[in-house]
């Protein structure tokens, strides 16, 4: 499910004087052909334990070999996030878990590949990126029996190692986020960038994008408060809800004179609360040390520049371009939706073909949800339809009906379809007659309308629409009524 942020103003989240301070850690699976350290396919949804090999299973004697494509995708997304790409190393993060084949995860620790970037959100909010580092995913456990699908108390567990060794990048933001809306916008924008640069399909519902939130609260200007890490946040909507809940919980505790314990908490989608998973005291000592089976990754400047040069135009720039062409604000919902669907280029093509960009934007947003990046409808056909609209030859309602046919047929001549439907542009005298008839039929409504009761207009417009069998242009009817009133 793709959610987008609303176009309402981002308000400052405050609760009884406290502000929230949020940093996000986002894990994304890279869209590589093979795994991070072996030649097994990186593919979601295959039969369990089919995409495995000695390296994936951590068999004795097997050794990791770094996937060049994964490094390049990490560089791509890092550069798209304005990061510096640097000399980097891998470390072992040691802990026991049955779906962790080697009992250590190979991850970048003190020398990550990408550092010091930023992400601009619609509405001129800049969130710093501390780092983006490469690491391998674990396998997937399914706990059978017992309660709640947890390992504790289950009868047995099934492990699928297809996901083990899938390349991940963990993108760590700075604690620059102050509201749930900003957090949602950050995830949404990050997702759009990841998809745009081809680094990941970033599907939260398939787990190829996973969000952990570090939340604390403080009085403005005070030092950072103790933070809690929220896990299991599985949709953009949950990101907002979980952060909101957690910040409220912390404010409540502080106001009750309690102190916040640093801990990892689990977001429960059903009860809308976070619950303690483990406290800092219970945290594993991961005993990080440099991975001796791998060598330093030090991309040379030519490689970095080649990757940078290969970056596509990023979503923010594309939205700005679409906004300029359509005259809409860059964070208007239609701009966000259409750009997210990669249909912005199509709208611009319609404009180039002589169409009206603003009308095209509305139509694409409303009617092209199923069409993908390259809609079947020729741009020229949509251009012609929008021209008929702006020339007053079709009402918005009629245009919608014509468009429906064009979309169903994968194209068509708007003028011919309109003619076949009998949508001749309604002659003004005919419309005026209908308006007069409506006034005559409802003298009370007319009187109220004249007295300035806006609501009374609905009844009059409704009558005209009924008389015209829905073909009258609502705006034209309103204009006529206004003219009659002031006459």
């Amino acid at each position, binding site marked *: 499910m793709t959610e987008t942020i609303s176009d309402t103003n981002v308000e400052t989240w405050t609760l009884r004087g406290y502000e929230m301070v949020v940093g996000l850690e986002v894990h994304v699976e890279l869209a590589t052909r093979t795994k991070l350290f072996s030649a097994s396919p990186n593919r979601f949804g295959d039969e369990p334990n089919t995409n495995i090999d*000695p390296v994936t299973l951590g068999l004795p004697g097997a050794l990791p070999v770094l996937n060049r494509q994964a490094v390049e995708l990490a560089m791509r997304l890092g550069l798209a996030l304005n990061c510096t790409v640097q000399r980097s190393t891998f470390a072992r993060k040691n802990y026991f878990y049955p779906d962790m084949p080697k009992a250590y995860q190979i991850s970048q620790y003190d020398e990550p590949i990408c550092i010091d970037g930023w992400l601009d959100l619609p509405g001129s909010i800049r969130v710093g990126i501390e780092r983006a580092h490469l690491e391998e995913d674990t396998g997937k456990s399914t706990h059978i029996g017992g309660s709640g699908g947890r390992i504790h108390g289950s009868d047995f567990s099934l492990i699928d190692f297809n996901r083990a060794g899938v390349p991940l990048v963990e993108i760590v933001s700075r604690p620059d986020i102050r509201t749930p809306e900003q957090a949602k916008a950050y995830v949404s924008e990050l997702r759009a960038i990841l998809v745009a640069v081809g680094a990941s399909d970033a599907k939260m519902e398939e787990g190829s994008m996973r969000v952990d939130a570090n939340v604390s609260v403080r009085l403005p200007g005070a030092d950072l408060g103790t933070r809690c890490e929220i896990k299991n946040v599985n949709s953009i909507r949950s990101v907002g809800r979980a952060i909101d809940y957690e910040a409220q919980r912390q404010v409540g505790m502080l106001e009750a004179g309690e102190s916040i314990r640093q801990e990892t908490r689990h977001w429960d989608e059903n009860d809308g609360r976070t619950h303690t998973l483990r406290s800092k005291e219970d945290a594993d*000592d991961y005993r990080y040390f440099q991975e*001796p089976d791998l060598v330093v990754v030090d991309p040379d400047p030519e490689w970095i520049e080649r990757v940078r040069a290969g970056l596509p135009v990023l979503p923010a720039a594309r939205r700005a371009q679409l906004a300029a062409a359509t005259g809409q604000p860059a964070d208007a919902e239609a701009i966000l939706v259409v750009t997210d669907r990669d249909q912005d280029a199509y709208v611009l093509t319609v404009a180039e073909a002589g169409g009206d960009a603003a009308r095209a934007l509305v139509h694409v947003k409303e009617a092209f949800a199923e069409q993908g990046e390259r809609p079947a409808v020729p741009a020229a056909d949509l251009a012609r339809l929008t021209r008929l609209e702006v020339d007053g030859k079709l009402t918005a309602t009629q245009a919608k009906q014509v468009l429906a046919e064009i979309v169903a047929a994968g194209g068509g001549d708007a003028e011919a379809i309109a003619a076949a439907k009998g949508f001749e542009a309604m002659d003004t005298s005919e419309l005026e007659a209908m308006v007069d008839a409506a006034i005559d039929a409802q003298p009370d409504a007319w009187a109220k309308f004249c007295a300035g009761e806006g609501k009374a207009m609905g009844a009059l417009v409704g009558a005209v629409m009924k008389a015209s069998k829905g073909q009258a242009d609502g705006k034209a009817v309103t204009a006529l009524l206004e003219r009659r009133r002031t006459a």
Partner: protein
Amino acid sequence: MSDEFPTSAMDIAWNVRNNVTSAADVLERHLSTIDEREGDIHAFNLVLADEARTRAAEIDEAVSVGRDPGPLAGVPIALKDNMCTRGIPTTCSSKILDGWRPPYDATVVTKLRDAGAVVIGKTNLDEFAMGSSTENSAFGATRNPHDTTRVPGGSSGGSAAAVAAGFAAVSLGSDTGGSIRQPAALCGVVGVKPTYGAVSRYGLVAFASSLDQIGPFAHDVGDAALVLEAISGHDAMDSTSIRQGPLDISRQLMMGVAGLRVGRITDLPEGASPDVAARLEEAFDALRNAGAEIVDVDVPAFGYGLTAYYLIAPAEASSNLARYDGVRFGHRVEAPDTNAMYMATRTDGFGAEVKRRIMLGTYALSAGYYDAYYGRALKVRRRIAADFAAAYEQADVLLTPASPTVAFHLGDKTSDPMSMYLCDTYTIPSNLTGDPGMSVPFGTGDDGLPVGVQVLAPALQEARMFRTAAELERSAPR
């Protein structure tokens, strides 16, 4: 074995390639030697008689149709049982790998097969290569063929004993802190630890990844070179493998040492017994007589190698051995929950020395201790490398004892881990630096037991190291 029958790898390969001797005959000779003495020695965890016979027949068939099986045609070779062999148990002499059969071959095994060698068996070792006597084996100790009341050294004791006893013409071991060179010295055979990255580690069950390196045991320097040439060279499956072709050694073996600067380390840690020290002096004399220049060099940090090693190696081992958790393969002790299963499996599956090192290493890497132990050890490691680099400005090769003493009796050191660790004093530094080292037999010491002299050289200078060893071999007291 009769004099006319070939025993060296070089002679065997020449005879088999030229259809003078059959690979099958060579194999049967070795199998019968195994029949005679293996009961006393226990060099092998597994003798692969059937597989070897099939392989020997293939080689003879190839020769009969005019194909060349390769430079090791028909040469019986024993593998330390920490190298993966497809479908054949690979135990590391540990109970924890009970029942595991690797689904793949180590790169060295593939290369040996491509060179025409015949794998005759998997040899005993100290569990996970942790030890210096081959007494830390879940399957019982290996004994020294020169005196079966004594240890063969370790951890590659089975591979050293197999060559010394004539069970195999050559063998492979692995050397993390001296595990090839020390048993070679104690068993009176040649043993080589190549430059780190010269031989692929893919399929070698890891002990300490940044130190482990596979190398050959042989009756003589020439055979060791032949095997090393066959197994070295870049492997895309090992990221630490050096990007270059196989080592080129054999052609330079007879070049002698005239003009070569042979370094004597002035501040070498004490501990060598008088008989070993005497042989080392004779080795310097022999090289001087052959035209080498003997120079004094300082390697001040040499003596800190042992301490740094016993932090770095266990730290890496604690991580490498964490995968033996009973989940996917090997030994498992059932228990009510996962953590209890891990604990029961590992408690039952690992021997005492392995547990000791896992605990040592876990401690050295722990939060709050890392800087004082592991971090400090890495600094010492860099310092040792710098000291050796400076020494190699003045000397082309260095000479030291390979082992402080000749072979000791079984049980002598098992109750005192520190005395066992001291066996590796002279061999450890080259694992820390990644440079090559080899032990070459040079006379005998107390009780007529073999003494080995160690030749050290800078990274990738195996040819120079072998030239020196070949000169020592020619001039060794008989």
